């Protein structure tokens, strides 16, 4: 069954229409890559799915697990299992990483009617996951993303994902600004979470990350629409030929 069904979705940001009829179906167990040139609407799509305020949906629908995702508040989307790894994670001095993540995890557990974790249980849970992302345990006591390097912030996003265990993870340009070693760590974290109960959408400008997180389906987003979809090979072709030919093809097809 499809976990995510986006139908003819259009959205605008500060009055400017960015998404102009996106159709996309993602099923459990799949990894999709959404590629596209700058300004094509990739990040807008990711943020609309997470429910960012000021991103106005002007048409279409998004069904998540059969429910109307767009009608849900951002926090309820998270509690239902939607996770956005931010392109620019926010720095929040004064809020500790562990403290924040425990609050988030328990908010989700409460929503699901599960017992909350106490500090000890929480620490047991997160210890292994810090190792997975190559994060020193001391990082748990630091303020959320405060003074983190670009790589640390991205690793922290994937670490949060590993702890919160979403059903749908959307990675918004998680690869940008990462050196190859950091990229491998992040990809390894993501791959460890692939499985039949989860779907992952990787939004990226470059195909490099797809060498490590191998997608089942690749889509090209151009001018606010999915202009082309294909397999792994499409990403490699895009790497060689750029995006212009896809846009031209789409224009010629009247899409």
């Amino acid at each position, binding site marked *: 069954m499809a976990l995510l069904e986006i139908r003819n979705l259009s959205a605008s940001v500060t009055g400017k229409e960015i998404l102009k009829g996106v159709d996309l179906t993602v099923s459990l167990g799949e990894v999709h890559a959404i590629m596209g040139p700058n300004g094509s609407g990739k990040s807008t799509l990711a943020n609309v799915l*997470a*429910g*960012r*305020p000021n991103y106005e949906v002007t048409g279409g629908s998004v069904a998540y697990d059969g429910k109307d995702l767009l009608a849900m*508040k*951002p*926090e309820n*989307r*998270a*509690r239902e299992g939607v*996770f*956005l790894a*931010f392109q620019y*994670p*926010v720095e*929040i*001095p*004064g*809020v500790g990483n562990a*403290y*924040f*993540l*425990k*609050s*988030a*995890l*328990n*908010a*989700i557990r409460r*929503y699901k009617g599960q017992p909350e974790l106490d500090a000890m249980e929480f620490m047991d849970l997160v210890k292994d996951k810090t190792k997975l992302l190559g994060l020193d345990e001391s990082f748990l006591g630091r*303020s959320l993303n405060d003074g983190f390097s670009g790589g640390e912030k991205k690793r922290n996003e994937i670490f*949060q994902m590993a702890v*919160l265990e979403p059903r749908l993870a959307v990675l918004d340009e998680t690869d940008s600004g990462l050196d190859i070693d950091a990229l491998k760590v992040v990809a390894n974290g993501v791959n460890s979470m692939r499985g039949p109960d989860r779907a992952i959408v990787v939004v990226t400008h470059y195909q490099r990350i797809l060498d490590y997180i191998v997608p089942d389906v690749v889509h090209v987003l151009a001018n606010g629409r999915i202009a082309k979809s294909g397999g792994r090979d499409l990403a490699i072709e895009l790497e060689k030929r750029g995006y212009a030919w896809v846009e031209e093809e789409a224009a010629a097809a009247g899409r």
Partner: protein
Amino acid sequence: MRGASFVAAPDPRDPYAAEFANLERGAFASEPEWLRASRRQGLDRFLEKGFPTTKDEAWKYTNVAPIARQRFLPAAQLEGDGLSAERLQPITFSQYEGSRLVFVNGHYAPRLSILKEIPPGVRAGSLAKMLAWDPKAVERHLGRYAKPEGNPFAALNAAFLQDGAFIEVPPQTVVEQPIHVLFVSTFHPTPSVSYPRNLIVVGDEAQVTVTESYAGLDEGVYMTNAVTEAIVGPSGRLDHYKLQRESEKAFHVGTLQIHQERGSVVSDNSISFGGALVRNDLNAWFNGEGGELSLYGLYSTHGTQHVDNHTRVDHAKPACTSRELYKGILDGRSRGIFYGNVIVHQDAQKTNAMQTNKNLLLSKDALADSTPGLQILANDVKCKHGSSIGQLDEGAVFYLRSRGLDADAARALLTYAFAREIVDQVKVAAMHAVLSIQLLSRLPHMEVVREAL
């Protein structure tokens, strides 16, 4: 004007002049001549100018008319020591270790005070007692730093001061445990005024931590007019805290005057939670090279509270460093004011001064005024200042919500985090713990933060 008859508005100075005349014939009559002269000078300064108005630059955001028109019974006439230790509990630091000097309605309360682990030679106790016992020790410093000129409230304090803490640490002496000074006001049907006066003298290479608390046990109307003079000798160290938790109907006006000699290190952290109308003045003077001063402040207000913080740092000597960070969290229809002034004197080369004020508005009716300022008369200095007034960062709110926290919880967490930066500067563990809890009870939607702690 024919046919109209006028009754002159009563002059708000009159009751103070009358009270002073009474005391001069009574309680003050037996005091040493220098003290009587100092009182007289304080009164004269006050009578000269009266209460400030919003036309005075230093008072332009704070209208003290409610103080001027209120008749206050001198707290000296109230009972002092009738308070039980249990009633004091909510305003002390629960796991508090160290010495405690308690003043109830302006009177030293020996029964509630504890002195322990005070190294030999250190004197800590009641200023009034010290005046009787060793007046010279008081005369050397009292009123020499906090001058009645310029601040009419400091002038009134000089005229009517009765008691407060006297803390003197001899050279090369370290007082390990903080000394907590607590001024408590209890309910009285007639509003009263007390004039706490503290003297903290830290010798060469000596060290001490002093926490100064002002608290109301009942929600009554009263006035606290406090002055603290802190003198820190060469290479001495003073960590000072002021915790203002007056009744939310009370008036509080306080001055902290810091005088730093060569190479001394001073920190102050001023937390204002209480009071209807509050004015905190802090003045620091570097009197020798290489001094360091850190100033932190947090004012958290709601309802119709009004809190005004004025700080002035005089870099009178070269190579001193001052860092200042004040933060305000303003809710309801409350108003918070920060007015900072760093003056780098002509010879004060190699000065390093930083001044920052940040305000968080939690409601659309709350108001913040922020006026940081630098006056630089030297040319080889590093100075900067900045200020901000704004709401919570919506990007941060969304980030937290996207992880499952609801909107109220996200806002609560961010508000708490904003305050934490100041609270975490509190190095007295018991005070830090109490402050964290009180902050949670003051700010909206803090349940989630409490659970997560």
